[in-house]
């Protein structure tokens, strides 16, 4: 095994300044973090509720920042940064820049096929033609309808909306284990 550089082999690989690519990737990662911090300052991400036992719901930032949706802007920026980083890795670390066109003929069909599942799910899951009737959607609508959580608001306690204590829902004995409360919205 030789430890001397081999002239023939040394000339065969592409010459890339990997440390420069490394620096660019680090810089882009820091930019993602900064974008997130700016987003937090501008109300682009959810913050902890003052009440420890209020349901954890991400409030619409648009309402809090005069109509401008920072969350979408910050999301777009960090995803654009991620795409740039991925391009650097693909072109220089994986040497796609130095390969022939065959590599695109191999990769592009997989990218198109990969979108099949998300495309098939989108109409039913993300684009609702009809009204969504799920416990989570109801709770979210309930949360959004109140400007601020109040510790005694109906959805923050197990009491009824009128403040009255409801009747017991099922017999309470040690022999009766707790059952999941499906679809219940106290």
């Amino acid at each position, binding site marked *: 095994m030789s430890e001397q550089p081999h002239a023939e082999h040394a000339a065969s690989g592409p010459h890339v300044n990997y440390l420069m690519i490394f620096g660019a990737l680090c810089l882009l990662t820091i930019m993602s973090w900064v974008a997130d911090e700016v987003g937090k300052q501008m109300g682009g991400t959810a913050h902890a509720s003052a009440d420890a036992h209020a349901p954890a719901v991400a409030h619409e930032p648009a309402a809090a920042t005069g109509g401008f949706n920072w969350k979408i802007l910050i*999301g777009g920026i960090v995803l654009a940064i991620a795409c740039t980083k991925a391009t650097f890795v693909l072109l220089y670390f994986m040497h796609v820049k130095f390969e022939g066109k065959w590599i695109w003929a191999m990769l592009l069909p997989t990218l198109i096929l990969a979108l099949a599942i998300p495309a098939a799910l989108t109409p039913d899951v993300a684009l609702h033609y009809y009204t969504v009737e799920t416990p989570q959607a109801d709770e979210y609508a309930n949360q959004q309808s109140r400007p601020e959580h109040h510790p005694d608001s109906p959805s923050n306690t197990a009491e009824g909306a009128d403040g009255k204590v409801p009747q017991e829902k099922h017999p309470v004995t040690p022999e009766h284990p707790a059952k999941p409360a499906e679809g219940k919205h106290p």
Partner: protein
Amino acid sequence: MTHGHGVSTLKMGVPIPNAKLGMWLFLGTEIMFFTAFIGTYIVVRLGSPGWPTDTHVTHINILAGAINTFVLICSSVSVVLAHEAVHQGYFTKAKNLMILTLVLACVFLGIKSFEYYGKFQHDILPGHVPESNQQVLDKMVRELDVATGLTALRQRQVSVANELAKETNEERKPRLKAELDVVNTNVSGISKKLETPEFNDLRRKALAGTIKLDDAAKALEKLQHDHPEFKVVHEIHKPILYGNLFASTYFLMTGFHALHVIIGMGFFTHIIMLGNAGRLGFEHGTLVENYGLYWHFVDLVWIFLFPLIYII
């Protein structure tokens, strides 16, 4: 009609080694594998207004994710430099760079384990997250029942009693009776000790949904103070809308990514072993390149997981 001499042989296929072509084909399937997960995650999030993004609730650690991103970038550089070193004939340097890559992969998994530990500690696990106030209370009661040990004992009580009633062999009845006595004594003993008025009151109100979460949390804290047996019951958290879907997608994507990291560590170990045996040579250039391609893809996936899970 015949071909004349001097006509070059028709060159078929792509101008790369078969092994490298195989690796690229494999990476093509990997693109489809991870894009299905990531794409579905995006679609599910778009269709779930109120998705949990508060890091205090989801126990997502952005700093840990950012450090892991940096670690993977460093490892991508070390693996590509190792490939270059093999091409240039610096095999010891290549082996050392592979050791560095392996160490960085271990650091990545260590940080990931720390994050997973937080998720397990706070019970942010698929199917475990209460999404309404009543689910929070029901979960607490279930865990209280399990903590007493009475749930299992009472099941055993019924099982032995049924067995005794059906038993026709008189010789076996005394043994069953003795076992039933032991179970009854245990049930009675535990019941007297743990099923205090406070316990029964909290349990009854929680099942009926007639207690506020704050009050339930205080009552649970007092029970845990009086009886350490109840310390296994998770602290009462606010309900998390879509918390179970969040936990499922989080563990699915990061779990498969971590599995790829572990496989990559096996590849690096292979090269290190070749280096230690003094057998690493120019002929391993394609092998090191293929392992590097795989590792860069693992880095590529993380580049998208970091903003999607940790930031947005």
